[in-house]
């Protein structure tokens, strides 16, 4: 059965081609029209204010937070994350590092710092605004995740295993949708995240303003919602697995030019 099928589908695919290429062109036009005037800028502005605002029991700002390039360096910091941090003895991504700084610098409890990871209708949170501001400060710079420390290498390897892990009632793995070239889900192109070129394009386009939700979504949210749609249980915010998978994807994007926050469907 499997063997005779392709020839038949080829014919159908050829007939569909003319109409399809037109659809793809129009979707491109749609994306281009939104590119000019990205509401993520509203988050970036709010995030910068929160970064500098004295908050928490210690009434301190986050301005002395070490995001990987030294205390207080925001410019380019996102391009080296995730990264091993000596002070916390952990591999941390941006969101995890912000939680660490909210605890050490501002005196929040870890629970308080992690309480509102994602915004929603009528609910503005500090985290995604901070993420928008900090990532925007890496725009135009090249991804350069080191992954040399043994814990970084281990995180990468574990992240790779997670990427191919099939589970849940639908048998989905990340690789189900993101392990093959040139495929689409509905009209959205699916990057093959095991390949450098696609991984670069995809990773460097997050965070993004999602027009379907009217929110800026961080990379932690991207993974959280992918696993929801994979029918897995809930991925915990800044959990070790989320950081390992981010390490795998971020490192695969090395050399790509960071270009976010972007705007997406």
């Amino acid at each position, binding site marked *: 059965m499997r063997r005779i099928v392709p020839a038949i589908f080829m014919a159908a695919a050829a007939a569909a081609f003319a109409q399809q290429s037109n659809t793809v062109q129009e979707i491109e036009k749609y994306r281009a029209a*939104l590119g000019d005037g990205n509401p993520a800028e509203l988050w970036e502005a709010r995030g910068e204010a929160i970064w500098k605002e004295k908050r928490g029991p210690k009434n301190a700002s986050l301005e002395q937070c070490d995001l990987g390039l030294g205390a207080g360096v925001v410019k380019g910091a996102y391009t080296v994350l995730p990264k091993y941090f000596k002070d916390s003895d952990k591999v941390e991504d941006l969101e995890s590092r912000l939680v660490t700084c909210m605890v050490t610098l501002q005196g929040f409890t870890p629970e308080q710092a992690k309480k509102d990871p994602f915004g929603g209708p009528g609910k503005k949170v500090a985290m995604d605004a901070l993420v928008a501001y900090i990532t925007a400060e890496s725009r135009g710079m090249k991804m350069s995740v080191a992954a040399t420390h043994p814990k970084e290498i281990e995180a990468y390897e574990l992240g790779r295993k997670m990427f191919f892990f099939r589970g849940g009632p639908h048998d989905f793995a990340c690789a189900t949708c993101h392990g093959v070239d040139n495929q689409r889900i*509905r009209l959205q192109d699916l990057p093959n995240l095991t390949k450098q070129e696609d991984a670069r394009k995809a990773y460097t386009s997050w965070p993004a303003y999602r*027009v379907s939700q009217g929110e800026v979504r961080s990379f932690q949210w991207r993974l959280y919602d992918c696993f929801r749609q994979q029918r897995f249980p809930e991925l915990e915010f800044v959990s070790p697995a989320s950081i390992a998978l981010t390490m795998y994807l971020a490192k695969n994007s090395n050399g790509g030019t960071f270009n976010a926050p972007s705007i997406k469907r």
Partner: protein
Amino acid sequence: MNVGRRKALQGTGGAAVLGLAMAAGLFRPGTAWAADWNKAAFDTKSLNDAVKAMGGAGAAESKDITITSPDIAENGAVVPFTIASKVPNTAAIAILVEKNPNILAANFDIPQGTEPWVNTRVKMGQTSNVIALVKTADGKFHYASKEVKVTLGGCGG
């Protein structure tokens, strides 16, 4: 945009009744509301009723109005439109979405010295004709329309 949302957008029983009451002249447009917000016009369901609520008699199709937008929107929550008018003495430009619960999305008054050109983004509940309506300084209405398809996206969940 899923089926549930489409249904939600259609569930406008109350507003429809109010619209009828208004069409029957039971409410005077703009009374109990902000003086400069034309509630009557925003409650209408058709181009004709919208034109009436904006003080006109009818609208004529015009080739001097251009609607620039993608033919297919990746998501109905945000659909970008640029409307440009070459109709002499354009005084206002409105954007109407035929199949939305209420047809009028936005109206822009264009004073002298401002280009008859606007670029904004509207919501579309489903695939629909979109109408650009132009009012001239002497109170006449002209329009152009185009269909925009709204697609479903992503994992669909």
